C-alpha cells in the first residue's frame, strides 16, 4: 500500500494537468528504508511527448546524487498518461528499474477527473496496490 499526503497527491495532479497533453513525470523522495514519500521533485520530461516520458539525463544525475547525499531514496516515481487509463503500459514495465519504488500513474484524459493509481513493478510483473491519503503521511501541508 502507498500512504501519501493529500498535499503531495495534489502536487502530482497539478503537475500532470499543467503539462497536459504532454506526459509529466517526477519523483517523491523520502528517508531511506522508511517508505515515506516527503520531498516532491517534479522532473523535466526530456521527450516532451504525449506518449512517452524520460527523465532528463543530467537532471537525473543531479537528483539521484542529491538523494544519495541526503540518505533518501525514490519512494514514488510518477508519470501521467494523457489519453489512456492510469495503468502501466508495456513500455512502463520494461523500463521500470526501481523495484522498491511505488510507481504512480495518473491519467488526465478526463478534464474533470484525474485517475490516481499506484503499482509495484518488479521483474516485469505489475501489482496494483491500495492508495491511502493521510494528512500525517509526511511532506508539505495542504495548501
Amino acid at each position, binding site marked *: 500500500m502507498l500512504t501519501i499526503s493529500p498535499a503531495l497527491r495534489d502536487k502530482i495532479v497539478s503537475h500532470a494537468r499543467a503539462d497536459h497533453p504532454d506526459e509529466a513525470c517526477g*519523483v517523491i523522495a523520502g528517508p531511506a528504508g522508511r517508505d515515506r514519500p516527503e520531498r516532491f521533485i517534479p522532473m523535466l520530461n526530456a*521527450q516532451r511527448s504525449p*506518449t512517452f516520458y524520460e*527523465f532528463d539525463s543530467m537532471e537525473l544525475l543531479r537528483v539521484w546524487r542529491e538523494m544519495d547525499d541526503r540518505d533518501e531514496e525514490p519512494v514514488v516515481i510518477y508519470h501521467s498518461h494523457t489519453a*489512456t487509463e492510469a495503468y502501466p503500459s508495456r513500455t512502463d*514495465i520494461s523500463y521500470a528499474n*526501481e523495484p522498491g519504488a511505488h510507481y504512480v500513474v495518473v491519467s488526465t484524459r478526463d478534464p474533470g477527473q484525474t485517475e490516481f493509481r499506484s503499482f509495484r513493478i518488479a521483474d516485469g510483473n505489475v501489482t496494483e496496490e491500495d492508495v491511502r491519503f493521510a494528512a500525517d503521511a509526511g511532506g508539505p501541508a495542504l495548501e
Partner: protein
Amino acid sequence: MAIEVRIPTILRTYTGGAKSVEGSGATLADLIGDLDARYGGLRDRLQDESGLRRFVNVYLNDEDVRFLGGLETPVKDGDTVTVLPAVAGGAPGR
C-alpha cells in the same frame, strides 16, 4: 588509485550488493570489460551490439558519456563513473 564506479540498486545483484566498485582501463569499454571479468553479466546490462544501451545512462564525473565519446570515452585513475538506468516509459500503443 583506480576508477570508482557507482552501481545503481537494480544492478547490485552483480556486485554482491556493493554500491560502488573499483576498476581500471583506458576507455569506458576497457573499464566495463574489467568489471565484467569480476562481475560477470554486468557488461550485457550496460551495452549491446550497437554500443551503450539506450536506456542506461553512464556518466564520467559530471558528464553524460553520450556527449563525450560513448564507449570510447577515455577514463583515468581518480575518475568516478556513475551508472543510472533511465527513468522512462509511456502510454500504450507506441
